[in-house]
């Protein structure tokens, strides 16, 4: 089981210091609401000194590039070599290569062994500094520092929180399709630092992060009894959620982390239940002779979206978090499943099956404004980045291969393969790490 705590990131952080005063009016900005944004040319220079500084700047540039909102400029095009990251750069040299924004930085080792990482973000055309911060961490956490810096740059320029300092829990799959081994695994959002967190021959599916604890909920077939479990990432401690008389599946946490919502299968029907993790009491929310599953809370905890085939095919329904009236919101051609409410509250992502294809799309919580972001042989199971701007999902091509993870932003233009060692499915994005 767990060897060490993946969240023990202790960027001994807290010591996040603004180095200089941000200017009143920076000119460099990206409006991510505009759709298919032209990526902003940015120069991410090697942090001083040496190899580690270079590696940090590479991770920062890779994060920004994958977001689709930035176009990092090749280092070979740089004219000025930064030798003092505290001093103002020669802005003319950066304007010439159209670097609208410029990142400089430095990493040094503190007397106590900690790493100190500093960066400054410059607006080349305005000729001023936009941001400057420093962080302290253990040397093995250098990638986290790079992600935090990328988040700071993203936030400064887009005006929205970033999502780079996050993790993904997923199902790592290996072996042939008819004898597939599945284990839960966790990795950084860019695919680095991947490691398994379960290792048994039992099928494990649909891991989901707690919004505020180092905990996941998932489904396991342990003992040939398919049930929902909780797993403490720090200790490896596991427990069954509730004592239900049948298969429980499709779990998710409530936004306050106090409840798990899931489906209970009884004979041919699945209905939605919640369990309060403190009192251990269970509450039944739906009662239909149908398959009601994949429940997901709105971020304010007031509503629940789920899928049901009560009308024949799978469609999306919304109800109050306390149950009661259930209103269908999906009316397009095809069937809709795996709804997930955006952390911003403005959209619901889903899997859509239509015309023999599987698509990932979004719609407003009232069902209007449906947009398909990607479509193909089989795309399934979206999960939201914590800023509600990017989705991750899994894609299975036809034939004997296995699924892989992809991310796509809300414009639908920026689709990226997320590198994993083997096959991977059921991604779930963590909140921003603290």
């Amino acid at each position, binding site marked *: 089981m767990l060897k060490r705590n993946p969240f023990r990131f202790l960027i001994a952080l807290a010591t996040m210091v603004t180095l200089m005063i941000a200017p009143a009016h920076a000119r460099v900005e990206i409006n991510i609401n505009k759709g298919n944004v032209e990526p902003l040319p940015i120069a991410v220079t090697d942090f001083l000194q040496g190899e580690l500084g270079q590696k940090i700047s590479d991770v920062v540039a890779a994060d920004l590039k994958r977001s689709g909102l930035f176009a990092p400029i090749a280092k070979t095009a740089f004219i000025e070599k930064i030798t003092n990251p505290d001093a103002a750069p020669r802005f003319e040299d950066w304007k010439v290569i159209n670097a609208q924004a410029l990142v400089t930085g430095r990493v040094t080792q503190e007397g106590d062994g900690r790493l100190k990482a500093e960066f400054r973000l410059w607006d080349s055309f305005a000729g001023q500094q936009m941001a400057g911060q420093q962080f302290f961490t253990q040397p093995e956490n250098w990638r986290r520092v790079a992600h935090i810096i990328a988040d700071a740059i993203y936030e400064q320029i887009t005006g929205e929180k970033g999502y780079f300092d996050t993790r993904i829990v997923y199902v790592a799959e290996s072996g042939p399709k008819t004898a*597939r081994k599945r284990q839960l695994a966790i990795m950084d959002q860019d695919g680095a630092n991947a490691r398994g967190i379960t290792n048994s021959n039992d099928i494990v599916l649909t891991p989901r992060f707690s919004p505020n604890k180092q905990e996941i909920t998932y489904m396991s077939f342990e003992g040939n009894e398919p049930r929902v479990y909780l797993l403490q990432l720090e200790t490896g401690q596991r427990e069954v959620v509730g004592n239900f008389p049948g298969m429980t599946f499709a779990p998710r946490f409530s936004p306050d982390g106090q409840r798990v919502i899931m489906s209970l299968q009884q004979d041919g*029907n699945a209905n939605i239940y919640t369990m309060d993790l403190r009192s251990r009491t269970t509450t039944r929310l739906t009662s239909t002779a149908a398959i009601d599953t994949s429940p997901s809370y709105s971020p304010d905890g007031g509503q629940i979206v789920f899928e049901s085939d009560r009308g024949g095919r799978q469609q999306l329904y919304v109800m109050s978090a306390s149950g009661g009236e259930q209103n269908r919101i999906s009316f397009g051609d095809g069937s809709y499943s795996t709804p997930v409410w955006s952390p911003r509250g403005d959209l619901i992502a889903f*899997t859509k099956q239509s015309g023999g294809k599987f698509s990932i799309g979004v719609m407003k919580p009232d069902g209007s404004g449906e947009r398909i972001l990607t479509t193909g042989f089989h795309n399934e199971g979206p999960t939201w980045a914590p800023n509600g701007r990017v989705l991750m999902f899994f894609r299975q091509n036809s034939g004997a291969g296995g699924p892989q993870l992809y991310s796509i932003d809300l414009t639908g233009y920026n689709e990226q393969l997320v590198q994993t060692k083997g096959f991977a499915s059921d991604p779930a994005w963590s909140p921003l790490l603290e």
Partner: protein
Amino acid sequence: MSRIHAQAAGRMQSIARNPIMIALFASLALAACAKKPMNSAGDLGLGANAATPGSTQDFTVNVGDRIFFDTDSTSIRADAQATLDRQAQWLAKYPNYAITVEGHADERGTREYNLALGARRAASTKEYLSSRGIPASKIKTISYGKEKPVAVCDDISCWSQNRRAVTVLGGAGM
């Protein structure tokens, strides 16, 4: 919730896992790649007489351990009824067996829904067997959704083999 707890006790697992059964199932899974239904003896390369009457092999080879479903459907087709009728007769003849019905779905659906769909198929199979005189108390069900396909290919003929309910023998009399 008290009703639910009572049911849970009644559904305690009544079969022991049996390595022979598992080995046989694995060989069936391989045979399935040949893209043919595997109810007949020929698929296993075994003569019908090779199986000892009343054995797991007898059940699998001579009776047929699985039925197939139409897309998104849980109704028992006519050909499936014939198979289940044979299963019920055989199980009546060898009443020491408890059974587990495993429900499966093809890959053309989402994971969570397919878990429920497989469960629904297992439930309708259980109901049918029960209507043919097999005590419901001796039938456990489990769904594997789309997670355990026996056939791998890109077309409908293959998906149709994966939409199945498999009756697995367990318990006393093995």
